[in-house]
């Protein structure tokens, strides 16, 4: 499961907080997501079908996760959890 860190953070925030604007995601990410750059990532994720968006207030778009996004995040978290367990076993 190949989920870049920025995409994982976006999915975690959208699932945890509910539908958000891009700027809200940036503020909530504590520096992980960058202003402006977040829309490039969101556009890419929408193309992959991980998030969906609808027109919001004053020209902004409201993003929400799709079922595919939720599954991708769950799979990524399971994978990283298993990796941590295996790394712990090796060390």
């Amino acid at each position, binding site marked *: 499961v190949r989920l870049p860190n920025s995409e994982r953070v976006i999915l975690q925030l959208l699932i945890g907080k509910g539908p958000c604007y891009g*700027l809200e995601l940036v503020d909530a990410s504590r520096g992980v997501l960058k202003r*402006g750059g977040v*829309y490039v990532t*969101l556009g890419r994720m929408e193309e992959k079908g991980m998030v969906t968006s609808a027109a919001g207030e004053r*020209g902004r778009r409201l993003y929400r996760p799709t*079922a595919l996004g939720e599954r991708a995040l769950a799979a990524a978290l399971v994978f990283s959890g298993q990796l941590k367990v295996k790394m712990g076993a090796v060390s």
Partner: protein
Amino acid sequence: VSAAASWLSLLVPDPRGQRAVEETLADWREEVGRAQTVGERVQAHAHGLRSFAYLASGLLWDQSISADLWRTFVRTLAITVGLACVLGVVMVWMVGGDGAFGPFTASAYVLAMMSGFVPGIFGLVGSMGAGSSDARPGPVAAVAGLFFVWSAVMTSWILPAMAAPFLHEAAGAYPTIAVPRYVAPLIVHVASLTFASTYYLLGATIRRRFATRGWRTRQTWALMGALAIVALGIGARLALASAGISGPDRMAWLDRIMWLQLTVAWAMIVWFARPKAEPIPAPLET
């Protein structure tokens, strides 16, 4: 802000990038609208400018060139530089009679620079995808053979005839290769080394662009793209020869032609690498 938006929409042709620009502008407007003091307004504009810096870098990375193409470019560049180093050393050894190895004499440098045409041939073959999974060994080997014959003809008859005045002019342009004076030709030399990688990358982006077409169409277009750059260089050099420019001016013009070729090649790469304006697919249903 609206003027900036219209300019940016011209610069960012694909709809996904345009939407990112619009949303960044909307955030900017929102923050400026919320600001109540001069200080807050200045801060909002600073945030807006910073957003665009991040947006521009994100768009460049995400849309112009994808990561695997960058890897292809860097890998080919490493091979080309290695090859050019070997060829350069061989060339310096061949002309060892007319000067010391370090710092390079002008003629040794020029000959080493000429060796760039050999990596260029590799680049042309690379533009057809030699070494990549979608290349068929037979036709690529045939093209490689054809270019080998062409390079043999070049080295046997054409290059020696071209080299004599070129060497003389180069010696006039760079009579002593002191370190500061060597910097400019070094930059040109390094840029010339990127040609093979550029051809390779151009071929890869063109073949990707025509992914839905047949293999022959893809390879033909890829090769045509690289040959168009070669033809541009040859045409410009012929025009230069007919203009009767000589001496250091001629050297400067040759450098400009090289930069022109690289610029056109990179413009083509960016053009072919940009995503097609396709509708964003609907998300999967739960």
